[in-house]
């Protein structure tokens, strides 16, 4: 399920996002889509969107949180949860336990997701933000556990939930433990849904495999950034199976919108506003519900107090 990661290895490098963070401000970035050169300052100001062709470069989890929530409102939870190597996994080139250590060192992150709670326009919400940098955002036990915990946090605090996906799928190195995180997160979301709490799912480039086939597609409202790859199997695998070239744009966010899978495509600069709007819709309804319930209670009481007299009439 992690197969689409391959499709992105090249872009990861050409994107130069890492250079941006670690290098002096005057560095330039080349857009992988239109090949235009973008100045570092411009690149930052445009929220890492190419000003020539609107290509949305990937954001790290931290960058996305900064983009979306009220300043200083984010409170992280479970930040020290780290993967173990339950299967003693060794592939040709790699010992998984070593790979984990390397990735942690290289990215400065402990896992592929950042979770917590924050506010947007003053409205509280729970957040799970994935980061493609860390082993392709793949979901193993830690991603599954952290997401489940933040879903349960939303449930206990009775607040809405946002998950931003960026993942090649389930993490093969943790075997069936990874696959079962699909069931675990979906079960938690089903509980959240039963409790009548809204879940907004934001799909970013890429969202694939077991992540798409679980929590990503379960949003009450599903949003996506433009141009991102969103798929189950991914174009490379499909081409292998179908023995034919796929048309340009297959499994893009736009393809999914056309095929009825997602609600909205939102440009990066408008994301915060759209989320605020969605949160406001739900906040308005909670308030209106309280008033309506009071109204119903009053009506019921009225009826009760009237019933003796009406039966007497």
């Amino acid at each position, binding site marked *: *399920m992690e197969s689409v990661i391959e499709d992105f290895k090249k872009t990861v490098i050409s994107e130069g996002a890492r250079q941006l963070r670690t290098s002096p401000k005057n560095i330039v970035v080349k857009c992988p889509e239109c090949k235009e050169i973008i100045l570092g300052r411009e690149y930052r100001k445009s929220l890492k969107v190419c000003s020539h062709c609107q290509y949305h470069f990937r954001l790290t989890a931290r960058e996305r949180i900064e983009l979306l929530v009220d300043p200083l409102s984010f409170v992280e939870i479970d930040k020290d949860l780290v993967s173990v190597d339950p299967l003693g996994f060794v592939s040709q080139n790699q010992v998984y336990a070593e790979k984990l250590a390397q990735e942690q060192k290289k990215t400065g992150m402990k896992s592929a997701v950042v979770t917590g709670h924050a506010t947007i326009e003053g409205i509280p919400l729970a957040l799970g933000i994935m980061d493609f940098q860390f082993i392709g955002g793949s979901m193993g036990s830690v991603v599954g556990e952290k997401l489940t915990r933040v879903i349960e946090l939303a449930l206990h605090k009775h607040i809405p939930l946002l998950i931003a996906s960026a993942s090649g799928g389930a993490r093969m190195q943790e075997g069936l433990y990874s696959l079962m995180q699909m069931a675990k997160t979906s079960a938690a979301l089903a509980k959240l849904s039963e409790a009548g709490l809204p879940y907004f799912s934001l799909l970013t480039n890429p969202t694939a495999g077991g992540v798409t086939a679980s929590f990503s597609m379960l949003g009450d409202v599903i949003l996506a950034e433009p141009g991102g790859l969103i798929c189950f199997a991914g174009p490379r695998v499909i081409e292998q199976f179908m023995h034919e070239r796929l048309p340009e744009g297959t499994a893009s966010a736009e393809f999914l919108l056309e095929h009825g899978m997602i609600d909205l495509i939102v440009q990066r600069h408008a994301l915060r506003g759209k989320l605020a709007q969605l949160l406001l819709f739900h906040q308005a309804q909670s308030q209106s519900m309280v008033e309506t319930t009071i109204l119903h209670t009053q009506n019921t009481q009225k009826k009760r107090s009237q019933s003796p007299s009406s039966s007497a009439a």
Partner: protein
Amino acid sequence: MVSEQPKQSSQYAKGKAMEYDLEFEQPLRDLAKEIHIMQQECGKLENPTRMQEAKEELHTLQQEIYANLTTWQTVQVARHKERPRATDYIHRIFENFLELHGDRSFGDDPALIGGMATFNNETVIILGHQKGYGAKDQQYRNFGMPHPEGYRKAYRLMQMAGKFHFPLICLIDTPGAFPGLGDEERGQAEAIASNLALMARLPVPIIAVVIGEGGSGGALGISVADRLLMLAHSVYTVAAPEAAASILWRDNAFAPQAAEAMRISASEVFATGIVDDLVPEPVGGAHRNPVLAASHLQIALEEHLSSLKKYPPEQLVEKRYQKFRNIGCFENSR
């Protein structure tokens, strides 16, 4: 999607002589050949003792080999072309199976079948991946790789199970959900995800059994259950070994290595605690004695279903939640 009638059981079940056709069965093949030559050369019993010994040796060797299958050997048995299909178990274990069709919005998927049946005087809903018998039927069944319609038919039948309080039995046997263009277009991911969420809250007992291949999300899409069983020579994996090999080894010829590394055989998965029970198979694999294989499964199903029926629905669903909630290996780094 022609509604043709497939053969309803495997060839071995029809009394065809057993062959040793898997690579690792070479020693068995050799020994069987020896016995065969012996039989031909000395038509009348020239040396009955030697013949008897040879047959016993064959039996012992087969037992030994099958008790010590490697992961990749298990994959081969799980994928054996004559391995009993979902319908083999359905017709042997359940009565009155009535297949129901269609997702009520696009199509009917013969790779994922479902219907109602009677099990110990009780009505159950059965779902199962169906790989098919023989080339034509296998193609018709898309080799057990469902399209979104299959998962949506399953969704509908799960809802029916919930509405009418029918326990749900799912038989898992798929290389994976089909990765085609039409499947992306019609929401393979959405269809699987919806099933995961629905199964998690369904207020009836659910038992899922991996009878052959448990391939990735396509298997999981009908296996969020109170009890997950695996047949002794089945496999359950996060990714097909070939797919994993092509990504991690950059060559799908390393599928055996990938299978070993991911620890996908029933006994390896059982060791993780993710699987609740292993169901024994006849010596040499279920395909050598489908009747016995079905009988083992029937006993396991009876046992687990009757134990699940002790729980009222709310408690059942909460126990199921906790079961999945607790799957995962991680540590706190501080």
